[in-house]
């Protein structure tokens, strides 16, 4: 790695840290300035001023805003996201730590499925340009991209779970099976878990496959006009080999970048799917935390999502600098 690239990566890293700091500050302020009260779920006929004071003190909400902010930042540096307001004896990390793997399994499986279908579909559609198949395929893809996820999810639920009773409708497994899973590995080895994942994965993949498919298709069309493709054809290679080995490999680079960014955005963007399928992931907890004005939990969830997005952006930047020498060179020009 040359010096330019190293400087470039260091610069990007510092930039990422700055972005995270700004996000953290905004999160802190947003929740405290928002017009909702964290004690809402405690109000009861027997609720007294004494209880109220005790709760505020326990949550640290009786301290001045500035002091709360400093405590928050210091704790973050220690990776202490605090205690939740609404769950007894649990820290934010406990709750999010249990949610994050479920969200990652769902997201990665859906992305893999979506990108596999998307890339292959894009190649086929480029190859069959102008055919009825391409027209129908593109329309279908645009429809799934535009259809609200909750609607697609509910349709699939209605037919596959409730009408035909082929697949389970919610959660990650029935409690009678689930309580035997002691580790993540037990969960991943259980066919029950994967069966529960089919409907949410399919719904998410239906939505996600549009981007790689359309991107791949247009890149392919562009690449197919290039001289080196024509050369390959003239060299007598089969059409299949020209498509896959020559054209697709070149057309795939932007798709890979989209995938890297997609991982980040999808992890934070599963709120709707997780709600519809009662999937115990980050998005569902986030909605719940905001509804209950559980500041630490909501902040923690947003923070985690922000870290993942910023980190994946950072990875995408590094990939760029490694794949495209011009990025490192321009960075070196700037620093020298």
């Amino acid at each position: 790695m040359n010096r330019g690239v190293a400087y470039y990566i260091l610069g990007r890293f510092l930039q990422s840290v700055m972005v995270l700091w700004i996000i953290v500050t905004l999160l802190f302020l947003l929740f405290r300035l928002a017009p909702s009260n964290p004690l809402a779920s405690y109000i009861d006929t027997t609720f007294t001023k004494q209880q109220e004071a005790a709760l505020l003190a326990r949550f640290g909400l009786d301290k001045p805003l500035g002091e709360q902010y400093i405590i928050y930042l210091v704790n973050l540096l220690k990776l202490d996201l605090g205690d939740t307001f609404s769950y007894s004896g649990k820290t934010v990390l406990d709750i999010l730590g249990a949610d994050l793997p479920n969200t990652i399994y769902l997201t990665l499986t859906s992305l893999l499925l979506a990108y596999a279908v998307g890339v292959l579909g894009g190649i086929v559609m480029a190859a069959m340009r102008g055919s009825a198949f391409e027209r129908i395929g593109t329309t279908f893809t645009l429809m799934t991209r535009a259809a609200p996820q909750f609607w697609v999810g509910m349709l699939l639920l209605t037919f596959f779970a409730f009408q035909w009773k082929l697949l389970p409708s919610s959660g990650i497994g029935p409690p009678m099976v689930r309580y035997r899973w002691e580790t993540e590995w037990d969960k991943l080895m259980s066919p029950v878990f994967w069966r529960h994942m089919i409907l949410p994965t399919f719904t998410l993949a239906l939505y996600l496959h549009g981007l790689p498919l359309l991107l791949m298709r247009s890149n392919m069309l562009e690449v197919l006009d290039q001289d080196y493709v024509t050369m390959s054809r003239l060299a007598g290679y089969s059409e299949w080999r020209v498509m896959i080995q020559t054209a697709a490999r070149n057309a795939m680079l932007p798709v890979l970048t989209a995938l890297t960014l997609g991982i980040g955005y999808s992890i934070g963007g599963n709120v709707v799917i997780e709600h519809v399928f009662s999937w115990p992931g980050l998005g569902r907890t986030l909605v719940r935390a905001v509804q209950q004005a559980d500041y630490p939990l909501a902040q923690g969830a947003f923070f985690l999502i922000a870290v993942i997005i910023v980190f994946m952006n950072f990875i995408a930047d590094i990939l760029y600098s490694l794949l495209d020498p011009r990025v490192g060179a321009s960075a070196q020009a700037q620093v020298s």
Partner: protein
Amino acid sequence: MSRKLVSIALLALMMLALALPVTSQTMGEMVPPIIVHSVTQAERPIEYETTRLVVENMRELGLEVEHRAIPWAQLIDEIWYSRTVDSAAADRPFQMTHWRMVGRPERSDPDEFTYNLFHSSVRDGGYNFIGYNNPAYDALAEAQRVEVGDREARLDIICEAQQIIRNDMVNAYFIHPLTPQVVNTAVFNPDSITTQAGIGVHNFWTWIGIEPTAEEGKTLITSTTSFLNSFNPLEIAGDAPSRVTEMTWDRLMRINPIGVPEPWAAESVVWEDPLNVVVTLRAGMKWHDGEDVQSDDAAYSFEAALAGTMQTKEGEERFQPEAPDYYPFASNVANIEIIDDLSLRFTLNTPSAAFETSSLAKLNLIPKHIWEPIINDLLTQDDADVDSIQEEIPIGSGPFKYVAFDVNEFVFLEAFDDHWARPQIDAWIMNVLPNQEATLGQIQAGEMNFLWEWPGDPGVLQNIVEENEHLDLFSAISIGFNYFAFNVRYAPFDDVTFRQAVAHTIPQEFIIDNIFNGLAAPADSFVSAALEYWRQCEDLPTYDFSIEGARALLEGAGYSWDDEGRLHYPGN
């Protein structure tokens, strides 16, 4: 000349006569715009629609009314924390809001609502957020508490209290919801389902009595839209967790299906005098970990609720209980004396008619061998109380025991074989299912066999029951009620006539038939029609829906309308 003079004098007199009513009834200031709060349509559509309807009717009285629908967490700021001009968290104190109280077994005794909703001592920080202050009422609320021996005398007091509140119209009650539940009667015997007065069929008695008629029925599967938060016998963590804790931890008494406390873990409860009660436990009871349940456990269950330390906050020294949720229910206990392994004597500070309902039938029995070390440890810490405790597998002595739970997803209980009232079913499962449509799908598809709660349109449930032969709808009048609360501290709601006029704008029947699809009962008091004993009173005043009636009432009190039809206060 004289005739002319007489004519002029007559004319002048006539004009004077015509002018008199005008001058004697000068118009007061215009009634300022009013804001009526409710939760949002998305959160609770029924409450939103009701409020919208009433707001429209209030406009017919010549009022400028805004309907402000905001999420519950925000509503707390604008109502609960905005009672007075000085303490308002919002930009001004609230005026009128839709509100509701939910039914819980311990609310079967009228004490909680009679005292906590209206006594002037809980005006600033407690549930009397409307600011009602009536010494005559306070005296009644206090008197019903100490009327221990004579139930009929207490009934008279409760009736008088209801009369006062209805006359003063500080809260405009309009419905008690009928809580709808759907049960899969292909797998359960419908005759084994118990309806508890004011609660519905999803109650403790159903859980232990419901008989499976098919293999699938041996596991009762239900769901909740809210997260389960925690299972802690010393914490009240919301509706669903409370219903679970009452199955897994026994209590000395329980509220029976008709709403009266009866001995449960106690074999007998004997009052020696209004301050002393001797409780004897059933012999042979076990904790879920196999240890014996004894009188020192029962005593410790109350001692734990009373435990706490004196702490100094902002120069003020005050008592900080370790179990703040349960402390109020135990605080009347002055002393507990252990008589033998199974008997103990409670001595109270003051006589309390509600002690059986709100203490003996409320506090969970907890094993001393588990909780004493926990509480002792908490007593050494300033900033932690029982809310920070969650046992990995909680231990109680109730008819159900915990197998596993995940607060975000499910709780899985099994029948406790060593219990003297072992349930008919083998397992009880509650899943967290925030998606209402999925709830409907699951009950129809058989994935779930007991629909516990339904915050949506009750008409939807009636439809699915008609379409599915294996489903039956159960409903019962709730102890809870929906109402409009007025901030009686400030004009215009400080005027009883104005409040009564607003009460006339609530179309009770229309709301029941159209918004609740018939799944509600008319309400006129804070004591539900479900609590038949406490409703044996003379008829309470009625406020029929009538805009004309409301206008006549206002007119009679000197209110008037300007040329544009806007309502003005009485003059002078």
